[in-house]
């Protein structure tokens, strides 16, 4: 089965639509959204509505820290994120907030675990930034493959039988075999706010039959998404960073 996995949409309608269309074109049979549907971007109401629609059609949807902040005020975020969270809370209706509040922190399916951040303690929203973080996540769970987001930079970590870790920067559009029985942790790039220097929206396809993961990048209308952020009165830096992909 081909599973499209999207993470960190951040209320970026243009990027979200582009990724969904690309996933459809590439024959995705199932959809998983790893959280942070809202926050930073100017289309939170639409993004939640579209996500609800996808969830009703069978998609797995998880909660991210920005989804949590859109429901109730919480600390620990930088000033831009805090400002965006306050704006997002005003922009969402009670139904949308109820949907976000009810999302699970993680989901398990066959040999895979989906989670927004560090699987060791998902509610604390730790980043998986290096091999040691990846090891902590993998040690904490049983699943052979862990898929997470939150960092906005794609990365892949593999654990050997001798408990050594391989870390790897995935190459776009190249299928990487997640060899059995090794265990793997994949950090997905962001749909709505990439931070690896490539402004194109990122998503991943997992082919469970061949156990291959492919990172795809999709160009989208960055100018419109950025203009909407400016028009909404959100911090300028949130608009400017979309074009830089940083």
């Amino acid at each position, binding site marked *: 089965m081909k599973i499209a996995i999207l993470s960190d949409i951040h209320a970026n309608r243009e990027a979200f639509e582009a990724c969904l269309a690309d996933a459809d074109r590439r024959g995705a049979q199932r959809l998983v959204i790893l959280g942070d549907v809202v926050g930073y971007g100017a289309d939170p109401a639409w993004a939640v509505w579209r996500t609800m629609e996808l969830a009703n059609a069978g998609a797995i949807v998880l909660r991210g820290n920005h989804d949590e902040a859109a429901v109730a005020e919480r600390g620990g975020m930088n000033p831009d994120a805090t400002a965006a969270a306050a704006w997002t809370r005003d922009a969402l209706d009670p139904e949308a907030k109820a949907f976000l509040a009810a999302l699970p922190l993680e989901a398990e399916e066959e040999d895979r675990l989906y989670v927004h951040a560090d699987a060791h303690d998902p509610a604390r929203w730790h980043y998986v930034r290096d091999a040691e973080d990846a090891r902590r996540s993998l040690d904490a769970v049983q699943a052979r493959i862990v898929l997470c987001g939150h960092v906005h930079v794609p990365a892949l970590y593999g654990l*050997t039988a001798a408990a050594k*870790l*391989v870390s790897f920067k995935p190459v776009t559009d*190249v299928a*990487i*075999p997640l*060899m*059995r*029985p*090794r265990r793997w942790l994949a950090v997905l790039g962001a749909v709505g706010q990439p931070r690896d220097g490539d402004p194109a929206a990122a998503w991943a396809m997992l082919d469970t039959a061949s156990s291959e993961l492919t990172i795809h990048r999709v160009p989208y209308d960055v100018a419109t998404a950025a203009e909407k952020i400016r028009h909404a009165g959100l911090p300028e830096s949130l608009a400017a960073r979309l074009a830089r992909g940083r």
Partner: protein
Amino acid sequence: MARQMLTEGEELDGFRIGARLHVGGMAVLWEATHPDHDGALLVKVPRLAEGEDPAAIVSFEMEQMILPRLSGPHVPRFLGAGGFEVRPYIAMERIPGPSLLPLIEQLPLPFAQIAEVGARVADALDALHRQHVVHLDVKPSNILTRPTGEAVLVDFGLSRHAQLPDLMEEEFRLPYGTAPYMAPEQIMGVRSEPRSDLFALGTMLYFFTTGERPHGDPQRLSGLKRRLWRDPKPPKALRRDCPDWLQEIILRCLEVLPERRHPTAAQLAYDLRHPDQVKLTARARKQKQDGWAKTIQRRFHPDHQPKFARRSNAAEQAASAPIVAVAVDLSAPDPALHEALRTTVGQIMATLPGARLACLNVLRQNRIALDTTLDEAGNNKHLQRLVELKHWAQPLALPEGRATFHVLEAVDPANAILEHARVNGVDHIVMGARAQSLKRRVLGSVSAEVAAEAPCSVTVVRARGAAAEAAARTPETADTPF
């Protein structure tokens, strides 16, 4: 994890297992057949028993990752695989015939044979490097030959794919490889350098030439590292009649720093196929090893320790050092076109410092009449063309070694250019469009035919000037390509 061995007559995912062919250090090879695939196949099973080298598992995983992603005549076709959760194996096409190993019984080999075998192996390495893979275990026993002549590389257990995780590098601190053939940077842990394979091929060429290996067969890491500071005996010291061009090629392959070797396998193949065009340096005539003063300095002086960079991508490196061929028409000189062609070529060569240029001219032969090599005035036509070709290239001011010159004698110019491009792995052909003339209308356009059939990029150059503008206005050019 399943550990039981295969037995003859057993069936595995549709593969009927035949005779056991070979028991190697890391894997066992079985003959096999499959109803969906013609001919004899090969099934490779890793050795996983207790106490076996753990590298056997990792190298098997690497081969299972890399082989399915390779294509072309220089690798065995991948047919299927099983993972460790059931029973690990890789099934592939079986290449009939022996490896290059039996050649070792006949050393030293004739020089022409060394160049011929070396060029075929370099072709295979070029094809591999273009698919983002460095082999890292090039040696006679890992090179087979198809009945059609192409060298086939086997055993990708130590290889590295630039676009996939490298499981070997993370797992083992000691370098893995075959001692006589390992490049210095490979010994120091660099696994991403395509020119490591050129060092291994150079070791083979040295062995074929002299009957000895340039750095012996050391069994310890300290012995392996000796090649970082001790240069090998020049081939001429062991075989006095070794030609300059061959010693030049071999010692260039064996340079400690990869930057000093040939930029790509394709350029090495080119040299092996054109001995008369090899640029000779001090390496070519060296009679003995470097003196002790120089050697001790290399070994102990901190400023003389080689530094090895990690490359990111074998294919990128190949793209930055292309072989460019320019076809120059000297039969009806057109100064404006010659100038335009030179400008285009000059720009390409200036942008890509690793590129080399092959200047081609086709000396047309008549199909029926018996050609003489002398013209009416008694001059050698071939030699005359060569002189004119060099004269055309002279303003480019390319250093010796970056440009080679070839007069091809042929009935059909387009075919001759295409053939040269195919045999020599040319990456880019640059040629002029023939001016509007009766000849072109009757014969068709050479550049159009080359552009349509070429195995690589083709740039067709036109002179922009009064004459060219006038030609462009005539209606018949509208539907004539180039």
